[in-house]
């Protein structure tokens, strides 16, 4: 079972601001859904399949791509051909 402060912590990790008044509803819905997810406890972990994966990586070669102008076309703030972002610190 998760509590309101757990949901607040998850929202912080996910970079989503949740209004205080929404917390109770989110928490209740989370518990409802997680209770349903508990059915996964019935899965036998020993039944894991064999790995039949193949490597699909190509050679790292430069190919035609978007121009810098096109890549910046949707950004609202640019400077010298770069996109401006908020400061990290």
């Amino acid at each position, binding site marked *: 079972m998760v509590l309101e402060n757990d949901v607040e912590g998850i929202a912080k990790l996910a970079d989503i*601001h949740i209004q205080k008044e929404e917390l109770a509803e989110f928490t209740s819905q989370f518990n409802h859904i997680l209770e349903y997810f508990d*059915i*996964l406890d019935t899965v036998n972990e020993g039944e894991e399949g064999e790995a039949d994966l193949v490597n699909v990586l190509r050679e790292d070669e430069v190919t035609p791509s978007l121009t810098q102008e*096109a890549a910046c076309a949707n950004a609202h703030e640019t400077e010298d051909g770069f996109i401006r972002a908020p400061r990290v610190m």
Partner: protein
Amino acid sequence: MTREYFFEGADRTNAFITRLDVAMYEETGGVLEGKGIAVKDNISTAGIPTTCASRILAGYVPPYDAHVVTRLREAGAAVVGKTNMDEFGMGTTTENSAFGPTTNPHDASRVPGGSSGGSAAAVGSGMVDFALGSDTGGSIRCPAAFCGIVGLKPTFGRVSRYGLIAYSNSLEQIGPLGRTVTDVNTLMSAIAGPDPRDSTAYDRPYTHTLSGDIAGMKIAVPDEYFGEGVEPAVAQCVRTAIGKLEDAGAETMPCSIPSMAYALAAYYVTCTSEASSNLSRFDGVRFGPSVETKRSWHDEFRDHRGALFGKEVQRRIMLGTFALSAGYYGKYYAKAQVARENVRKDFLRIFKEADIIAGPTMPQIAFKLAEKSDPLSMYLADILTVPANLAGVPAISVPCGTVEKMPVGLQLIGRHFEDERIMDAAFAYETEMA
């Protein structure tokens, strides 16, 4: 030579987010020359706004076409607009859209299904003959069933996902919607094919001539597809349809998919986990409404994403973040992957004896608007469609009658890369009913 396509007719179902009254197409001699096609708003279209029905992508105009859109243009199609959907493909009703809900062309008080509800309503209402959708857990088949049209989720990898704005990339596929199996066959032939830009796309072009000859085809009918939660009238309608396939020469056999017990939970853990990663790119820096660059990174992004993502999107990102967090990864994500493998094994076991699997697409007819207000009750409606996504196998929904005057969908599921076989079975049914 470039030609104009005049796209007319009132949009009574709110099927479109963006409409092009005059759309251009090339005389290429392709299979779709001069045909108007609606494209779901999570598929990138150069020069045409693409929002995923989200306020966080308002104003975004992609600088490139998705691979499927390039192929449509090469086939001579005119892209007439972008269709409404559940925000980022998250939903089963097309009510979770920043642009308001789409309604069902058969009954305006009901939903068209989701998340490709706009595409299905555009076809179902007769505005276009062809539309593209995307199917993560049933998002093509569900609205096809609810709107009385045909919708195909191809084998995973058969159609390139390059340019599809990713929500859950190990599950989702772009696929065709149309009024008839023949239309879907034509559209599928245009969009399938190799693409070096999508490392999961196979070189398996689709050049199929439909055949209604299904004599001797073995059809497995899973008990779970007619069990608890499936409306008896819907189940009966689908059983009658399967009887028509027997009339056409197919043989049926009962079967069981034990992994269905936890398939839905495995699906939602997987898709929310992938969503939590895929949607981290929506931070307002490179596209969408701008952020304030004077504040600090996390403060700005939290407020931006809190204000502009809809509630269902926030819920799924947070559920995925939780499922992947330290201490819970083993309980949720790791077990979901084992469960997913078990679903795949169940399908492989059944397909050793049977050619296809048949059952209802949805357990109910189209819901009333706002009927599924509780998230979990909406999730539960996907129980019959998600197994095909977990296993990566192809599945089609074809109309098979009505209950309370609303359409019911017959779902046909096939082996990996045997999209052609389920198309033939759907065509045989359609022909038998003609």
